[in-house]
């Protein structure tokens, strides 16, 4: 595990990173109609959904 990897895997860090990605996707959706935005949107939907079940292992 890298020195950067460990802090990034904290619960709050992962949620914050996903929220930042969401902000970028939101900006992309507001300014362009690129297929990349749709692709990132579905990836983000899946990732947030999967991570939201974190307490249920």
């Amino acid at each position, binding site marked *: 595990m890298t020195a950067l990897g*460990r802090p990034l895997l904290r619960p709050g860090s992962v949620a914050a990173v996903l929220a930042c990605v969401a902000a970028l996707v939101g900006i992309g959706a507001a300014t362009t109609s690129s297929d990349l*935005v749709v692709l990132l*949107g579905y*990836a983000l939907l899946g*990732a947030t959904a*999967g*991570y*939201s*079940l974190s307490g249920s292992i």
Partner: protein
Amino acid sequence: MWRGRVPREAFALGLLLGGLVTGLLLTLLSAFVGLLPRPVGLVVVAALLVLSVTQALGLHDIRLPHRAQVVPQEQVLGQASASGALQFGFEMGTGLRTHMPSNLPYVALACSLLLGPWWAGLLAGAAFALGRLVMAAGRWAHEDWDVAWTDAYRRNILLLNLGGAVAAGAVALV
């Protein structure tokens, strides 16, 4: 959760396989459900999003149907075998056998089924598995992961719902 290297890799592989199987199922189903008019899909997604966000805000505790049955860790992980880890990962990756404290997976499900192109289910399924894998990696990296998650649960779940809402808006409107 066990810490052996091979079981971890088998678990990760199982997660991804499970996510891809669910994604494939969504892709097949979307061929039929996707025939519904787009406005119907938008209304369903919006309703699920409201339900998920308001739950995250603590306004209610309505949970949509799920198979509230944990994977038998004592049996599967007790063996500490690669096949047990693979099975555990697969069941978690499908999302079909898990407690669902959040309704956000239903938003992803509805978007993939009702609004997305054919590949949306596969991509969302793989990303769902990756999201679960990041959680597992966090537990491996930090002994106090459960405590940290519980302490900041409300903030984290709100951030995740915010992210899910933006993503749903993006795929619905672009």
